[in-house]
């Protein structure tokens, strides 16, 4: 894959524009308005926020088209929407609908346990989740133009987002100090294409932006994700499952921009009401984990 290819650069270009921002999960137009007014740089349209998917169970699919249309008609910022892992027909529908970005997401029930969507076939850009460098590079090889670490969506617990961001950043650093004759073995260990492993070896970063998701519930969580190396953040249940979504949305936007200024994060953290209820990830049965979906 040629990373200087114009079609791919246009996909990565939109991800570049979203850097430094907050992408918020919304389930209807009313929430999209709250997100845009708070300063979100994009919204993610989905049927139910991850905390509800976790609680209610059943099969989680692409959102209803009428809801996505309603959100697209209401907001002037980019609209993303989720498809099930491997469900390229849902992806084709969203491309026909002209959403701005597709998230092939572990939050929805996977449609294919073996294959992810071959994203290079699409003109619309894709973002995919990862837990480590190998997974990120496999998704990029398939055509993803943005990567987000998975965390554990709907948990309100930042611990997995931290684990995944630390892992990928550490693996990238380690690659940069290897000798040329060690790269092939590293590609084998990472189970990732050699050319992408070489890219990270030479540049110390992914060829696409690297965002954080899955468990951000407070302004300090947002700052932590950015301080660990995330270039922007996705917030799902953390806003609309809190006691005062409008206030919390603004506070997270503020803390995300001024993540390196503790006084600004302090100010954003004042008088916020209650955060969403959180889950101890160690208490979640293995079969209920979302992050293990996809590979």
């Amino acid at each position, binding site marked *: 894959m040629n990373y200087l290819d114009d079609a791919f650069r246009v996909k990565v270009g939109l991800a*570049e524009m979203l850097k430094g921002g907050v992408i918020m999960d919304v389930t209807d137009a009313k929430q999209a308005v709250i997100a845009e007014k708070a*300063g979100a740089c994009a919204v993610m349209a989905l049927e139910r926020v991850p905390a509800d998917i976790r609680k209610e169970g059943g099969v989680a699919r692409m959102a209803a088209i009428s809801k996505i249309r309603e959100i697209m008609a209401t907001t002037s910022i980019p609209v993303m929407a989720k498809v099930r892992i491997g469900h390229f027909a849902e992806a084709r529908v969203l491309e026909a609908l002209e959403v701005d970005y597709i998230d092939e997401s572990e939050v929805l029930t996977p449609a294919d346990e073996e294959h992810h969507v071959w994203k290079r076939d699409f003109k619309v850009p894709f973002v995919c989740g990862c837990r480590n460098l190998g997974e990120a590079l496999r998704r990029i090889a398939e055509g993803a133009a943005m990567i987000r670490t998975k965390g554990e969506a709907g948990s309100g617990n930042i611990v997995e987002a931290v684990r995944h961001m630390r892992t990928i950043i550490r693996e990238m650093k380690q690659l940069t100090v290897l000798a040329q004759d060690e790269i092939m073995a590293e590609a084998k260990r990472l189970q990732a294409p050699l050319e992408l492993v070489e890219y990270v070896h030479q540049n110390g970063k992914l060829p696409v932006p690297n965002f954080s998701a899955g468990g951000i519930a407070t302004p300090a969580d947002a700052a932590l994700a950015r301080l660990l190396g995330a270039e922007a953040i996705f917030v799902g249940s953390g806003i609309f499952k809190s006691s005062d979504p409008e206030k919390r949305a603004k506070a997270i936007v503020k803390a995300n921009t001024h993540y390196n200024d503790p006084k600004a994060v302090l100010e954003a953290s004042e008088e916020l009401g209650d955060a969403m209820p959180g889950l101890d990830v160690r208490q979640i049965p293995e079969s209920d984990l979302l992050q293990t979906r996809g590979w």
Partner: protein
Amino acid sequence: MPTVGVLALQGDYEAHAGALRRAGAGVVEVRTAEEPQRIDALVIPGGESTSMLKLMDYYGLFEPLRQFGLRKPVFGTCAGAILLAKEVLNPSQPSLDLLDMAVERNAYGRQLDSRVVILSGHSLGDGDLEAVFIRAPIIRRVGQGGEVLASYLGDPVLVQFGRHLVATFHPELSSDNRVHARFLAKIGNGSNGAK
């Protein structure tokens, strides 16, 4: 070496910082009202203009940036061009109102209409100029003081207003440094802007 501030509230400010350094400038990220006091020129990057407006509002940056633009050079790309325009359409929204022009947001359509094109007719010297358009706006009217330096499909895409410069595309995402060099050449030469 001039010091250029890049508004770093949201968007591709790091790409601009890289392009400015390659063109020979020192770079400061601007997030509060204090930084504009120690810069010679300001870049407002691409990103989401609504998001930047909110953050400018939260931190009292609106008036300091406007005052800065009344005295010193400002370069806006895409969202930055929207924020500098006197009039914003689709939808109408507040702006710094520094340049007499009307800009329509997302005027080519959604992301599927984003594109990389080659501009052959432009005023930046020999050779084609690459232009990366991402959910780009269109400049619908260029008013007093505006000089069109490049057009695409009949619409102005690179316009200078005295010491100020706007592009509806993203020169910071191309390796060609001529647009940033043009902006840096405006620092300290005292030419007048539209305001």
